[in-house]
């Protein structure tokens, strides 16, 4: 059920990004809306749940985009690895940290796209450095604007899922016969 919810959320974001967002002229270059979802999965969800969903979202985006196949998948998987590694070092529940991870993710994804475009370039037309700077500046601007809200939303969703899990564990512990717990939470608050 949870998988379907994440897939539904991802699909909604993709459809919004490809149909509604391009019609809003004032938005300009908005960051990839699936990045916050990928970060949430990487930082707050268990590996066995987050990795397949991240791969699925990457493949979906690669099919929706006209770029080289695997570009989004690569960016999401590397984001997953980096965000997960970062969450072991820093306190991932801190909204400022989440916003920082989002800024790094946006910069990293654009760097990957630029590298892919540069690799496929031919002819005498130079690389559009001005466009790259503008895209990066606008996307980071949008992250700074909506990032804190997204970080707050992620934290809220995480705490809600923890409360639900605690209730389920307490309910099972109250039973007379011995039962297996669904897992224990590590020092970083993530399930193992």
């Amino acid at each position, binding site marked *: 059920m949870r998988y379907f919810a994440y897939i539904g959320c991802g699909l909604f974001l993709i*459809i919004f990004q*490809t149909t509604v967002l391009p019609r809003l002229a004032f938005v300009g*270059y908005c960051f990839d809306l699936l990045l916050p979802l990928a970060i949430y999965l990487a930082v707050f969800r268990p590996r066995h749940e987050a990795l397949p969903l991240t791969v699925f979202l990457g493949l979906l985006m690669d099919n929706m985009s*006209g*770029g080289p196949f695997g570009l989004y998948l690569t960016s999401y998987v590397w984001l997953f690895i980096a965000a997960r590694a970062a969450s072991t070092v820093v306190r991932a529940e801190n909204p400022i940290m989440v916003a920082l991870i989002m800024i790094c993710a946006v910069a990293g994804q654009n760097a990957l*796209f630029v590298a892919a*475009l540069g690799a496929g370039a031919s*002819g*005498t037309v130079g690389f559009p450095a001005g466009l790259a700077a503008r895209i990066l500046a606008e*996307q980071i601007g949008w992250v700074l604007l909506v990032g804190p809200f997204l970080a707050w939303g992620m934290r809220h969703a995480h705490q809600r899922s923890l409360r639900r899990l605690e209730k389920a564990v307490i309910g099972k512990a109250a039973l007379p016969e011995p039962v297996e717990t669904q897992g224990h939470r590590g020092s970083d608050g993530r399930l193992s």
Partner: protein
Amino acid sequence: MFSKKTVLILAGILLISVNLILLAVATRRPVASGLGRTAIAFVAPFQELTHYVVKTVRDVWWRYLFLSSVAEENQRLLQDLGAAQQHIVQQRELELENQRLRDLLEFKRSLQSPAVPAEIIGRDPSAWFKTVIIDKGHADGLRRGMPVVSSLGVVGQIIEVSGRQSRLLLIIDRNSGADALVQRTRARGIVKGTSQDECYLDYVLHADDVRAGDLVVTSGYDGIYPKGLLIGTVEAVDFKGGDFFKEVQIRPAVDFDKLEEVLVILGTPLSEAMGPR
């Protein structure tokens, strides 16, 4: 002498006669008597008072107490106004769409090959790549490699086809290329996108005469785009001393941000050779 009954009858007749005579006289020559003025003077203030009370009550009712229904009516009228404005906007949208489709139909008639109109339903999620999804696919006869145009000029080519939708690579994408000619001098080059709203005419020799304002059209040599379709206008020409080629900047004829309807030209040689994907 007379019975009481007879006296009453005579008195009645007399009264009626006098009454009729007075009425006849009064009808012929109306006279104002002092009694009438007195009556008016006595009754009129009460009439006036009553009139003002009734008027005031009526005014209070209509102006204040009746306002609730006026407010309701106002609300209803505002809703009607909103609906009418929405209707006008929709009407305007339909008019504009109608105009665009007329232009497209006119353009379709001018094409030598059959063409299928399609609507853009989605755009690329990335800012770096310029592709769009259109609402026609394999079932409508579309194949990979088919050129796509609008009434203003070249739009791009089909790069992926599914049952009912297709992906279209716009000519402003960096991966796009089209063999083109400068219409005035027949200077040849390859139009390449920049992932911005502009293109470059690449591989134009230094010796070729190209100036700002020249029209750039498809050459037909690439086997994708039919010959003579407008791509855009030369905006700037850069002469880089050491380079073998000129750098020719083109402003596309099509405004890709506002593009909604396109025409897919069926039956070009390359798309037939490439087949479905």
